[in-house]
């Protein structure tokens, strides 16, 4: 037994978590069964697997076992279709519509692992209606949240609908010409307001609508309406149906090939038309594609590398222990020199392999190269050095390396780009010679490196390999001439200052000294050019010949010199990192309505001064004295109450507050603000016990729409950690099930939270304990003295657009503003690490305080609510993306060769052992590797300067300032993009809105579509009405725009547009005449 635990630490770990969840669950159940809550049971059902989750989500008792059973012999998709069929026939007694409805939802829930909210909220409903010829057909009404399901599941839901409709004997949809036209117009209109991943042609839309046996319908989700095909008999809204557009375009059409596989297997021949769809095809030149990440550049968020530019991020392949699953690593010094815009957890939009990635540190890769104010050109590999040199950096000539894993290329099906020549690749060559084994951990010196290459025929070590591919043959010749004329001492060379530019391009470090430029350890550099330093002089031994500089140095030196950094990865700032508690706007302590009694701050204390307030709530009746009020406990006699009906009633708030004060023995004067909500948004207007709000206010926390307290964080991955860096002792870790010394592999449900999160969760823990003791009259649970006591406690991890949480365990802390957790944990929440954020809450908080009754009844209300909780993570039920994670300790030579010939990553999947292969071969997900270590997972910039800089003006000036410092960035292009994608639309948009704006009463905030003729508020008589869009918001960016137009070299057409816009605004608002806007008078018709 002991042995098996030792071999499989995972099962012990799982048991531990299960036990602890059970403990909490039982405790919470005891608390809630007292009847002091809106319902007397814990409302987060536990699920052990997908089948359980589906059963809970769709509420059809007993189907979990069936799903499990089918799952043993069928694929996930087949299970979905078969279960849908079974549910339909089972429920057909309740009416065809109801049966169809449940069947489609069950199918979709299975496809989405029972985590997503899509099966509940992505489908507004189904209906059965009639064609012109009197035959019946079925329609599925899709809603916005269907987006989360992803294209394939969306498409399959239509297919499931079709299978079920046959089962139920419903006919097929026969669209009219007009209706087809409507679809075409609508999809095009949707693409304008929301942008589709794939915009199908009119023919493609027509083909699908004409042939789909199910009517793909949708709720009118957008504000915009169609302008052509309006008021149609069978299409009930003129608004654009977003859900329909998604299912049609990103589902059926884009995923046609995949869907076709299933229709073939099911022999649904009506669907063969899908073979005429080619699905998504990227056309347009590769040039354009690589620039895609620059699109919609945002003001204040800098560009770090233009696509493919020398001086930009150099592609290095590998996975650090904190990267993969879309996260990529940079040297901490790189983060720092980028004016601290890049912090750990910041999102970078990338040229490849995917669209974006979160940033984590890796100090084993190269940092940036910079010019200093004294003229020196140096590389900075350490954060300390970057801090020291901060104020001396005049130019960033090279952005350093970016570490991207093979798995990310595989996931994105992106062709492998030529790799940088790195130490780990060099070691593969060196490993053939036992004599070279010492260089596994050290690097050779300049002369030594050359000697190794000469003797063993291995390529020149990357430490002495330069960016020869970035210079021309002429530049090489010139440099060699200067090298020959240089004065050498030892192996250092003093070169003429004219060598400066080329040396910068090559990435050679030098010092500016009197009389020229001093290059240390120039032996390899000179040797590469066919020059030998020997005895204080320079001898020529090779000729410069060849079509490019790389070929030339290979020939001249006679040794192998590989392209050092042939691939540069374009990047710009995406979102900054996030770590903060979730506050509704405005902040809410308790879900208790105060209408306007509590003034605009929704103060419950102030409302209480009114005594009795009239609000819409669910009335509850006291079981012993019959008193009616909104609270679970009767304020008259303290007994429990039961719900009666939802009504507008007089609530004696003063009484409720006084009783609560007594019960909690807290004087309301002791606490600061106590905020309620204006109105309750839930269907039954169910009110929280006010005591919970008082305790929240007391402990300085607030609540979300569902009664829980959340902490939001950017997701970043970690697979291995050092106890020291997470602030936890080895002993404590041992208690948590960690064995071994040195670096430890993380268990998949363990998380490392930021200190800031710990501080917040500590307050939540104290709130929970107070709640247990003072409200439920029970023992406290957490008893945390300090944040350290949170170690080992459980949380619920939950992502937006999902409604299934996963249990996580806190094992340590970091100093970053993001949540380090296992890639499998993030994938279990349906997240990757490309810069998204999600939340954690303390398990007890969720169990005690969550209720479905609080959730808004509007579409989307169920999103981001813990409707079900997965106790144990199962790798076969997480997002498939995690199965592409790297697991190797080092990449084999085959990888580099494949990358050199630009192979597709899938070609070498067998060699590269991504997670799915690893699990298949080893039968466990434990025991994976990583290729690059880093000293400390918290080393790097902690808070992006995007967040610390207050004003937009300063952000922009920093953005442009950084752009002009970076060799790989074209500052004029950045300025043009900022103007085009941010300023001009902003100015123009506000200009348009000004003329159709609403008006507002300054006193009672009533809004008017149009200003009343009397000029007075019709509600309160206040004569002070105000604009909602002022002239100021239009001209806000105008001066900045004009300044930038003058300063930067913008495309001429853009200059004209700016001129045009400025003049239309001045022509409207009567600005004093500007003589010359930006020197375009001669061209413009003014």
């Amino acid at each position, binding site marked *: 037994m002991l042995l098996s635990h030792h071999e499989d630490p995972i099962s012990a770990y799982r048991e531990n978590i299960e036990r602890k969840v059970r403990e909490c669950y039982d405790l919470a159940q005891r608390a809630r069964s007292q009847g002091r809550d809106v319902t007397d049971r814990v409302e987060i059902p536990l699920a052990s697997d997908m089948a359980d989750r589906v059963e809970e989500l769709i509420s059809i008792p007993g189907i979990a076992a069936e799903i499990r059973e089918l799952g043993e012999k069928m694929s996930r998709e087949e299970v979905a279709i078969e279960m849908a069929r079974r549910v339909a026939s089972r429920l057909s007694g309740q009416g065809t519509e109801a049966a169809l409805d449940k069947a489609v939802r069950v199918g979709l829930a299975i496809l989405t692992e029972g985590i997503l909210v899509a099966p509940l909220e992505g489908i507004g409903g189904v209906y059965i209606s009639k064609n012109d010829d009197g035959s019946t057909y079925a329609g599925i009404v899709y809603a916005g949240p269907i987006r989360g399901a992803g294209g394939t599941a969306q498409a399959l839901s239509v297919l499931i609908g079709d299978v079920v409709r046959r089962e139920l004997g419903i006919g097929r949809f026969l669209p009219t010409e007009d209706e087809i*036209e409507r679809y*075409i*117009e609508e999809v*095009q*209109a949707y693409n*304008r307001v929301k942008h589709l991943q794939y915009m199908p042609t009119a023919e493609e839309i027509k083909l699908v609508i004409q042939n789909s046996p199910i009517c793909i319908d949708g709720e009118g989700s957008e504000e915009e*309406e169609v*302008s*052509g*095909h*309006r*008021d149609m008999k069978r299409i009930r809204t003129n608004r654009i149906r977003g859900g329909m557009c998604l299912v049609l375009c990103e589902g059926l059409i884009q995923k046609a090939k995949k869907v076709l596989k299933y229709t073939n297997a099911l022999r649904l021949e009506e669907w063969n038309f899908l073979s005429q769809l080619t699905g998504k095809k990227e056309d347009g030149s590769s040039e354009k594609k690589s620039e895609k990440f620059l699109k919609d550049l945002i003001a204040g968020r800098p560009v770090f590398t233009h696509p493919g530019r020398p001086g930009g991020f150099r592609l290095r392949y590998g996975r650090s222990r904190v990267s993969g699953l879309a996260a990529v690593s940079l040297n901490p010094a790189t983060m720092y020199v980028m004016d601290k815009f890049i912090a750990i957890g910041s999102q970078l939009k990338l040229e490849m392999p995917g669209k974006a990635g979160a940033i984590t540190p890796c100090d084993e890769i190269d940092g940036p190269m910079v010019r200093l104010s004294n003229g020196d050109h140096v590389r900075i590999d350490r954060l300390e050095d970057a801090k020291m040199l901060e104020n001396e950096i005049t130019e960033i000539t090279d952005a350093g390396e970016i570490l991207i894993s093979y798995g990310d290329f595989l996931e994105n099906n992106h062709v492998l780009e030529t790799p940088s020549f790195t130490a780990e690749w060099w070691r593969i060559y060196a490993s053939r010679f036992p004599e070279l084994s010492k260089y596994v951990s050290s690097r050779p010196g300049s002369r030594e490196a050359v000697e190794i290459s000469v003797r063993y025929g291995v390529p020149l070590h990357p430490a002495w390999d330069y960016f020869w591919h970035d210079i021309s043959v002429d530049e090489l010749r010139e440099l060699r001439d200067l090298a020959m004329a240089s004065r050498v001492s030892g192996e250092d060379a003093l070169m003429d200052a004219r060598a400066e530019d080329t040396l910068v391009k090559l990435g050679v470090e030098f010092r500016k000294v009197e009389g020229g430029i001093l290059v240390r350890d120039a032996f390899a550099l000179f040797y590469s050019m066919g020059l030998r330093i020997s005895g204080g002089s320079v001898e020529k031994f090779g000729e410069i010949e060849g079509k490019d500089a790389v070929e030339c140095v290979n020939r001249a030196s006679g040794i192998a010199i590989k392209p050092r950094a042939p691939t540069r990865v374009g990047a710009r700032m995406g979102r900054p990192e996030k770590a903060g508690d979730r506050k509704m706007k405005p902040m809410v302590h308790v879900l208790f309505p105060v209408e306007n009694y509590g003034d605009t701050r929704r103060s419950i204390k102030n409302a209480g001064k009114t005594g009795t307030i009239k609000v819409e709530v669910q009335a509850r009746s006291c079981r012993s004295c019959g008193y009616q009020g909104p609270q679970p406990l009767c304020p008259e006699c303290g007994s429990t109450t039961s719900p009666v009906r939802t009504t507008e009633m007089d609530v004696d708030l003063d009484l409720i507050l006084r009783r609560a004060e007594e019960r909690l023995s807290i004087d309301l004067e002791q606490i600061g603000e106590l905020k309620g909500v204006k109105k309750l948004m839930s269907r039954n207007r169910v009110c929280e016990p006010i005591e919970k709000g008082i305790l929240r206010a007391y402990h300085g926390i607030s609540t979300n729409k569902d009664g829980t307290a959340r902490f939001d964080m950017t997701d970043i991955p970690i697979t291995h950690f050092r106890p020291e860096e997470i602030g936890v002792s080895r002993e404590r870790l041992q208690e948590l099930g960690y064995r071994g010394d040195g670096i430890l592999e993380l268990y998949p449900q363990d998380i490392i939270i930021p200190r800031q999160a710990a501080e917040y969760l500590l307050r939540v823990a104290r709130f929970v304990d107070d709640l247990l003791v003072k409200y439920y009259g029970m023992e406290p649970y957490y008893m945390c003295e300090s944040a350290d006591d949170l170690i080992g406690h459980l949380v619920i991890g939950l992502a937006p657009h999902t409604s299934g949480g996963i249990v996580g365990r806190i094992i340590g802390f970091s100093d970053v503003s993001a949540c380090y957790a296992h890639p499998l944990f993030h994938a279990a929440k349906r997240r990757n690490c490309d810069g998204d954020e999600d939340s954690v809450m303390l398990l007890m908080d969720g169990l005690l305080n969550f209720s479905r009754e609080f959730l808004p009844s509007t579409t989307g209300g169920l999103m981001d609510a813990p409707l079900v909780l997965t106790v144990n993570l199962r790798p076969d039920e997480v997002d498939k993306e995690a199965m592409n994670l790297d697991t190797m300790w080092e990449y084999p030579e085959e990888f580099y060769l494949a990358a050199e010939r630009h192979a597709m990553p899938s070609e070498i999947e067998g060699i590269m052992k991504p997670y799915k292969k690893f699990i298949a071969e080893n039968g466990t997900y434990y025991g994976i590797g990583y290729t690059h270590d880093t000293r400390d997972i918290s080393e790097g910039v902690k808070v992006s300067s995007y967040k610390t800089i207050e004003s937009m003006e300063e952000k922009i000036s920093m953005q442009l300032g950084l752009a002009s410092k970076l060799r790989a960035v074209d500052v004029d292009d950045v300025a043009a993009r900022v103007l085009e994608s941010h300023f*001009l*639309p902003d100015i123009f948009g506000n*200009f*348009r809105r*000004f*003329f*159709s704006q609403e*008006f507002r009463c300054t006193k009672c905030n009533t809004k008017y*579509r*149009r*200003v*009343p*003729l*009397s*000029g007075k508020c*019709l509600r309160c008589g206040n004569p002070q*009405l*105000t*604009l909602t869009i*002022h*002239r100021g918001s239009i001209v806000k960016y105008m001066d900045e725009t004009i300044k930038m137009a003058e300063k930067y070299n913008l495309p*001429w*057409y853009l200059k*004209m*547009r700016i001129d*045009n*816009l400025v*003049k*239309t*605004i001045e*022509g*409207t*608002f*009567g600005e004093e005449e500007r003589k010359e806007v930006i020197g375009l008078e001669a*061209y*413009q*018709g*003014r």
Partner: protein
Amino acid sequence: MESLFEDRAGILKFFNSHGILVSPGALNLILQRSMGQMIPHLLTDEVQSSGYIDEKTVLRLIRGEEKVPHVEYEVSLPDIRVNSSVEDFRKMFVSRYEKLKKIIVTSSTMRGSVDIKTAKRSQGEVKVVGMVQSVEVTRNGHKKVTIEDLEDTIQVILMKDRGLAGELILNDEVIGVIGSVGRNSSTPVIFANEVVRPDIPMRVMDDTGKPPVYVASVSDIHVGSKTFRRDDFRSMVKWISSSREEAESLRYLIMSGDVVDGIGVYPGQENDLELLNPLEQYEALAELVSEIPEDITIFLMPGNHDSVRLAEPQPVFSHRIRELFPRNVVMLPNPYNLRLEGKNVLIYHGMSLNDMVELIPGVNFQTIGKAIEEILKRRHLVPSYGGKTPLIPSENDYHVIEEVPDIFITGHIHSHYLGNYRGVRYVNSSTWQSQTEYQKMMNFSPNPSILTLFDLNSSSTLVKRFSKD
């Protein structure tokens, strides 16, 4: 002195005496225009310093002198600027209310109307005039309209069983209401018997028997766009210049906005442009227009694509654009009520037509006539606030149709629609641009390259098509 300038020799002598050479073209022009005592004005500093005068200089100087070439078309320009306050918005709506109220109460049925405050205290039948604040349909299918005047508001119920619930009521239109005050609820409401609109009085145009004088209308030329139909436009110009009887009777040509494609009107427009420089676009238009005989007066109005401010009323083109065009071109603001041969020709580019399509059930771009008639019925070019038509708030609402037009011309939507509403001949003028990508997306096929001619002396209307395809 005057006689001096009547012949070639005299003119040459005059210039020679000032040491200035005269080109033959300039000389001809001076003679042609029989400039008389104007000639000394040609001795500008510029001419004196260059010692030379050519045809172009003469032309420019003449135009400079004659800012308003045809006095009879002197265009009065609304000079308004936004002070961007709530009060400016309010004043605009008050202006609209007062102007339209004046029209409504002239109707005999509205005699004896009272203000809302008084109506609320009245018994029996009342007549009020109000601006619509909101329109709702009640659960029982009645229409509940809230109207306001300068002091008060009241609800008006349009009962289903009185056939009024089907009445199309737009936000912000001004209506007269005849009905009885009901006091069943806490606040008085009016149960309407009749809704009275400012509307157009029925008229029949008398045939004068005079020979026809045509005013022709085109719109949305979009010069500079890759899809501008240059050949069609050319053949139209050729036809106008021809000696066909109808062409000979053509005296006025109206271009009602979007005369060029402009720049930066929508994202990515640069891909659709042949000429990226707006000034070049106007130059190209001027070149085309200059082939139209000088005795035809051309009226040029801006639209939303043009190089003037976007918000309406739009001013006339700037001097720099104006000077590109020959002297028979007159610049108009948008909108404008033009008086031609004693007739009112109301011209409006038509931005609000897009809004109207969304507001009026059953109207689309092909059946735009219905929207135009709803505009006439309400006597306002932009009946509803809050759409996509930017109006400059000012004390005077320039969009009220104060005078009943004889001809009403709009453009903007690239359709072609000819109609007659209560004696008002109206047209949505045709475009000279082929279907754009945007229109393709909107599934709209324009009806391009049509010239519409109205006879000012009779009710006859002609349509000439110049489309090659």
